[in-house]
């Protein structure tokens, strides 16, 4: 894999993004475990021109209805300050968590923002909905 050379001032920005993602993963892991779901964590390497190469976690969850994945995509995306995907496996039914104004916003593939603000109830509702739709 080719390695990119990030701009000098990107190190703090990269670390801030990694911290945000790891906080999100830690939060979701806690909620999933409270539901009694099996959670495993893997590492994902991401390469972005602006931030360079970095490694973040990726969550795999096993709910009674099916499997869910929480996968960081990129910090530098069009129209937002970062993106993490939450999708059911193997149907790939998904919602996108985008970072806007220092908070996570859930958006559907149809471009509609999820009416409930991101939090434990929202996550559990989405997890059940995505896996149920996959059935």
């Amino acid at each position, binding site marked *: 894999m080719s390695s990119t050379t990030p701009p000098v001032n990107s190190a703090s920005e990269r670390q801030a993004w990694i911290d945000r993602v790891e906080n999100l993963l830690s939060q979701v892991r806690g909620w999933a475990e409270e539901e009694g779901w099996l959670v495993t964590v893997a590492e994902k390497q991401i*390469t*972005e*021109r*602006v931030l360079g190469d970095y490694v973040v976690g990726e969550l795999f969850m096993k709910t009674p209805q099916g499997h869910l994945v929480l996968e960081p*995509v*990129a910090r*530098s*995306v*069009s*129209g*937002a300050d970062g*993106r993490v995907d939450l999708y059911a496996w193997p149907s*790939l039914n*998904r919602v*996108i968590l*985008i970072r806007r104004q220092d908070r996570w916003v859930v*958006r559907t*593939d*149809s*471009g509609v923002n999820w009416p409930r603000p991101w939090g434990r109830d929202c996550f559990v509702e989405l997890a059940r909905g995505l896996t149920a739709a996959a059935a």
Partner: protein
Amino acid sequence: MKAHAFFEQIKGAEAEHRVAQVAVASYQAAGGSRPAVLVRDGVEPEQIARCRVRLEGTYVVRVFAEFEAALRDAWARVRTTRPDMKPLIDSVAGRWSIPTDVTDHVHAVRDLRNDLVHSAGPAVGLTLAECRSRLCTFLGYIPFHFFLKPKK
């Protein structure tokens, strides 16, 4: 049209390029050993040589056309507008929060395609395989059901 059909068409165009490469090389070799073949077909050796040099660029244009068709198909499910390719790519990227690097890579292919069409020297050297990879990666961020056109 289903999403996978667009991917197949794009990959199919790349496969056609490989066939064309072999065919042109064989024809060039045949013309070299038997010039009567070229005389019969009314083809000059220089024309074959030029065809070989430009073949990959021709298929970059073709692959990009398949990509454009796929993008417009998806966009038709979202808006009734018909924007030019640059704003269309940016609008699609914004709608589905596509990573900036992925979008920039597609714009580089678009620039290359424009240079090829307008006969300017290409600003960025990309192989056909690189172009195909970049375009398919971008399309991969569009939810598959946006490629399912309603029946007329």
